[in-house]
């Protein structure tokens, strides 16, 4: 069953609309002109840390710890990135070293 081009464009429009809804909604609900509820401001303070944590897990979601390399290359590379960044605090160094190490590890 294949869609027509018009149907495919409609699906793309729906995906764009859905994506934009998730991005614009908070800004539409809490415009700068009106005072933002204290509860939402509280969330704005505490959510980022949790959201970045979620993002880390999200970027590793397809790692299979039960088979293959059992997630070891990912674990080692993430540990090195954390250690290097706590030590040198240099974003480029941490990211470049971690990525190159990962690319080497998956080829071993």
């Amino acid at each position, binding site marked *: *069953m294949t*869609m027509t081009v018009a149907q*495919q464009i*409609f*699906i*793309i429009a*729906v*995906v*764009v*609309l*859905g*994506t*934009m*809804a*998730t*991005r*614009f*909604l*908070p*800004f539409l609900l809490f415009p*700068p002109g009106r005072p*933002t509820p204290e*509860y*939402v401001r*509280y*969330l*704005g303070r*505490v*959510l*980022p*840390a*949790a*959201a*970045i*944590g*979620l*993002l*880390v*897990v*999200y*970027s*590793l*979601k*397809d790692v299979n710890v039960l088979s293959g390399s059992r997630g070891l290359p*990912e674990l080692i*590379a*993430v540990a090195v990135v*954390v250690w290097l*960044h*706590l030590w040198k*605090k240099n*974003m480029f160094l*941490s*990211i*470049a070293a*971690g*990525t190159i190490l*990962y*690319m080497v590890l*998956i080829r071993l």
Partner: protein
Amino acid sequence: MRDKTVVLQAFRAAFPVTVPILAGFMFLGIAYGVFMNVSGFGTGWAFLMSLLIFAGSMEFVAVGLLLGPFNPLGALLLTLMVNARHLFYGISMLEKYKGTGWKKPYLIFGMCDESFSINYSARIPSHIDRGWYQFFVTLLNHSYWVAGAMIGSVLGSFVAFDLQGLEFVMTALFVVIFVEQWMKEKVHDSALLGIGISVLSLIVFGADKFIVPAMIAILAVLTLTRKALERKTAEAEGGGRV
């Protein structure tokens, strides 16, 4: 003349920060373009989708939607689920995107994982215009993604470099930003909750369905522990200043 300097300075400050994204988006974008190509969608489609959707993982999912039966409602629900995490980004950026004028709609349109995490964590020097800086971070990321998709789509199967593993640059970026956030804050409850609940949800619901349950649980715990968490934060920050 002064205006031009402001813009140029912001660009010069923003570009270096986006270099890791350049590497990551070139790789992922090329992979996406190749994937589109082998799925039967030419360069025009790759351009349209990378330009308008600009949400990496969703664009891969969208190819599947285009090849299946026509189901707009299903497509909408799946998009909302995959992209629900943007709601958290929006709430986090309400203050930081304030007062950016005409750039604001574009900043929100282009708020992918990478633009959010860079613009959220950026320590923008005081002489740099914040709005222009955030604008260039978003625009550069957007351009890398579209350019990558174009290259992949045009070159198709001719791309034969062995770049497997380069996608880890994204994970490394998010880990670095997590560590930066960790060093900046005195109370780590929310950061730990974010990791812990997400991992738990991933184990229970699997890779395709874990985001929404994780978000609900994070929101619930942060709401229920609000009083205690606010007190703890106030004490930690007060103690730090003494």
